């Protein structure tokens, strides 16, 4: 799922000396993921097995160790938080999952910076804007001026280039996981927000709709919202008799059924 950015031309102009000709530096700023070691995936899957087998205490230890060695990987923190949730360590679970929020925020900053560079390059290369509009201090570039390479300019451009990101888009699974310990701790508003984030991240996340419906139903007494979420889950999940019963019950209790009638 790599998104490749188009190659950009970065025009760097040097401030100060009007006698020097403006420079154009060409560089490929396309963000690229850092490669993962092959054996890491194997290790990762061992951790998944522990969770699958319900070996939560072991899983906590495993994922803790992996988070120490690979703190930049959101999947590690998410599974660590999941293991803690299963052991009832709700606050610790939230603390672990918060690392993923940090990773996501950092990625967004990186991507934002890359985007800004791309925009800047595009603006300069058009040469339609005045130097003042470039929000910088370079002298005006005359049309037809020859472009020459300058070593210093290249180094300066590289120093401001976006570093290579760990991934190319925010990590979505953390939201649905985070909502669980939040609900357990009575942080219902936060849990709602997490579920909604999960849905925003992945609108086809049936579990998120399902669990958000329960949150509205049992803990927020918002039967209408609960019904809507159950129904959306029902849509995404296909046949589900439990959901059908809940929907019918809710429709009854909330008076929606009567309204239909």
């Amino acid at each position, binding site marked *: 799922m790599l998104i490749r950015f188009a190659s950009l031309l970065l025009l760097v102009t040097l401030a100060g000396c009007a006698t020097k000709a403006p420079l154009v530096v060409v560089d490929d700023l396309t963000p690229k993921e850092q490669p993962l070691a092959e054996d890491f995936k194997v290790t990762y899957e061992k951790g998944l097995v522990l969770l699958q087998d319900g070996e939560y205490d072991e899983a906590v230890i495993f994922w803790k160790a992996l988070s120490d060695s690979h703190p930049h990987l959101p*999947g590690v923190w*998410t599974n660590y938080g999941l293991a803690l949730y299963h052991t009832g360590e709700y606050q610790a679970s939230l603390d672990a999952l918060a690392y993923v929020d940090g990773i996501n925020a950092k990625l967004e900053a990186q991507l934002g910076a890359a985007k800004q560079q791309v925009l800047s390059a595009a603006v300069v290369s058009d040469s339609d804007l005045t130097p003042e509009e470039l929000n910088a201090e370079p002298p005006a570039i005359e049309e037809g001026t020859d472009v020459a390479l300058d070593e210093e300019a290249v180094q300066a451009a590289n120093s401001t280039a976006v570093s290579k990101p760990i991934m190319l888009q925010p990590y979505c*699974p953390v939201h649905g996981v985070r909502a669980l310990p939040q609900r357990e701790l009575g942080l219902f508003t936060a849990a709602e927000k997490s579920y909604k984030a999960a849905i925003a991240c992945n609108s086809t996340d049936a579990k998120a709709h399902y669990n958000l419906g*329960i949150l509205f139903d049992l803990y927020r007494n918002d039967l209408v919202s609960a019904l809507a979420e159950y129904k959306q889950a029902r849509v995404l999940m296909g046949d589900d008799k439990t959901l059908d019963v809940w929907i019918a019950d809710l429709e009854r209790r909330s008076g929606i059924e009567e309204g239909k009638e």
Partner: protein
Amino acid sequence: MKFFLSLVMIAATLINSGCSLFSRGDQTVRMSDITSLKIRMVSNEAPDVSHDDVVRYYQAYLAVATDPEMRVRVAHRIAGLKLQSDEIRMERMTDDEAVLAEDQILAKASIDDYENLLKAFPDRVDNDAIYYQLAKAYSLAGQPYQAISVLEELVKHYPRSIYYLEAQFRLGQLLYAAGDYEMSEAAYQALMTAGPAANRFYRDAEYLRGWSIFKQARYEESLLAFMRMLDEHFPDEATLEAVQGGDLDLLNDTLRIMAIMFDYLGGWNQIARFFDEHGARYYEYKLYSQLADQYYEKKYYKSAASTLRAYVERYPDSDRAPSYYERLITGYETAGYPELLRKHKEIYNERFGIGTPYWEAHDVKVRAKITVALSKYIWDLATFSHGWAQVAKKRSEKEQGFNEAARWYSEYIRSFPKAADTVKAHFLLAEISFELERYDNARNNYEIVAYQYPFYEGAAEAGYAALLAYAKYTPAPDHELEWRQLNVASAKRFVTEFPDDPRRGTVLVNTAETLLKDKYYEQALSTARLSQQTGVELSPRYRYGASLVQGHSSFELDFYDEAEISLLSASTYEKLSRKERADLRQKAAAAIYKQGEQAKNDSPQQAVDHWLRLAEVVPESTLKVNAEYDAATLLMDMQNYDRAENVLLKFRQEYPDHKLTKDIPSKLIVAYEGKGEWRKAAFELMTLSNVAKEEDERRIACFQSAEYFEKANDLDNAIVMYKRYAHTYKTPFDPAVEAHYKLDQIYALQGDEEKRRFWLDKIIRLHRNGKNQQTERSRYLASSAAFQLAEFDRVAFEKIKLTLPLAKSIVRKNEPMQRALKRYTQAVEMKVLEFTTPATFHIADMYAQMSKALMTSEKPKGMDEVEAEEYQYLLEDQAFPLDEAAIDIHQTNIRRTYDGLYDEWVKKSFSSLSELMPGQYNKPEKVTTYVDQIR
């Protein structure tokens, strides 16, 4: 020459007889004193030709000469030569009477020759020479009257003769010698009438005329004559100063005879009278001097003094006035008139002394002369008075003498500030001032001697004497301070200027004592220190003094360590009274105490050491109690509780009745608290809770005691104290509630449910009765108590099984259930969240349990299927409302989530509801098993 010699001798004889009153000791007044007469009579004839030869030649000529004129002239010449020869002979052999007689014979021969010539040629115009020679021959022949007669003839008949003037002069002399002063005066007058021009006898004539008049006792005229002579020949001071030889003799003789005449006329006053009448003369001083001399010669000291004073009075501004007065004083000294001598020395000082108008008006030369005499006179006057005072026996005389001496020493100092012996004057003046008890003046002069004349042999003595003067003086009260300051300055100067003086140590001690008296502590201290560093062994009295000053001063200056040592040292002085010694030791103790205070902030350990050693150094000091108490307090502040405990316990033991002892428990409590010895602290608090003065203090101590017993795990004593508190102090409300709560907690630890029930119930009632005193805490504790009481009954309820007969067991189980429900409800009603949700849950759950207990209760045996079904229906009918109640109450609990409340009891209510109403509440989330997306 013999002729004149004879004249002189005659005159001398006459004067001698007339002036016998003026004899000068062994000398006789003679006309020969007027030596100018001799000198002026030198012959101008050539001496080297033999008179006899020339006479023979002339006689040979006469034998052959025929010209009468020539014969007369030769005869004149022969007679003249013979006379001249006779004169020479007489000059050479005046003592040989035989020769003298021969000369007279020869002279007579000449007389005959001249007489013959006159007879032979009576009318010759040159007979004046014959007369002249004849007169001379008569003189040589010792016939003055013939000579006078001849000379009278000569001047009468030959007024134009070249011999006229000399003839008159000789005539005057011969007449004078013959006692015919009137005629003599006339002869001299004739000479004077001839005028001074070409008149070599003029001045002598004036002089001798004066004498001639004098001889006639016409003194006034005589004086005028002499005055005229002096005026004419000594017109000014310069001529008088230049005079010498015969002129000087003439002058002196003139002055002498004039002085004599003034004496005849009435004495010294006549000089002024005379010159007032005839005009003042510059040489008057000579006359005063001469007259004074004459008086002195006759030992008429007072007259001489009066003469000299008359001059001074007449010419007070004269340069000579001082010397005239000095002569006067010398005269009295010679005469041996001591009182007059002193009187005039004093007058001398008044008239000519330094600063008098006379002094101011005269130049250095005059002043220099005055200085010599004046210094001697003043010193004489001072030493005389001083000596007189010293031997005087009457106090008044002694005092008068000293006063006089002081006056003269002062005058000496004033007049001769730079003289070599002025220092001595200062010293003697100081001594006198001391004798007169004028100590201010005494010390002033002693200090001048000591410090302005450091090389004076008595300088050190003077310096020390000045200090004695300071000590003696009693100034006016408003000058006491100033005086002591001066004393101190003087003493310091003494020590500085005379560093080797053996008295410097005692001087410093005295000074230090003075400084201390004036509260100049720094100076007093430094001086006292110095007094002990001089290298001089001080006597015990001064050692004591030095230590005393050092002690008091250093105490005032906060040098308490030094104060301690010094005061203790001073207290060893054997002449101290018991009280004095005790006071010093008490102050030393205070110094120790103060050392502690000083060290308190920076070196608290040292402070403690000081305070604790106070009792060792000065065991009798009352300060030791405070010191030990303060030591304990400081140890407490330092959190040195081990040592503090020891000190406090010792203090309580030693001073059980001291007022400070009452504070010991509170301090010990803190110490024990610091050491974590809670039980000991609790016992002290227990004591305090009994003995503290204030009730509130006792109350707090009681509670704290209980707390500390509890903390020390001495629960029995803790219960005693909490109970005591709970029973005794209903107010204030909060601690009363806490005490009840504490008792519940302790009994909980001891597992004594019964006691717990008692105190829990009391908590609830206390809260309820507290009304407006109720607090969140009391509400919480009351709610907790109600909840706990409910729990007791709930547990009992849960233990009871529903067995047959069911009615009884239901009642048995219902009883605790109802009590529990009541208490849970009570807990909920108090709206303490912590107990609201569990109480709500337990209420709901107890209903559910009761329902379940009914449904699972022991069934009666022997029922058939229908009966069993009926029985089951009956049970369900009984259980259903219980389930409804349970659901309803659980739902109440879970609705709290809508307000954001979600705890374990709410969760449990959810859990219960998921069983009671699974369709609505049994809704678990779908939980992801794992997340395979790595990133």
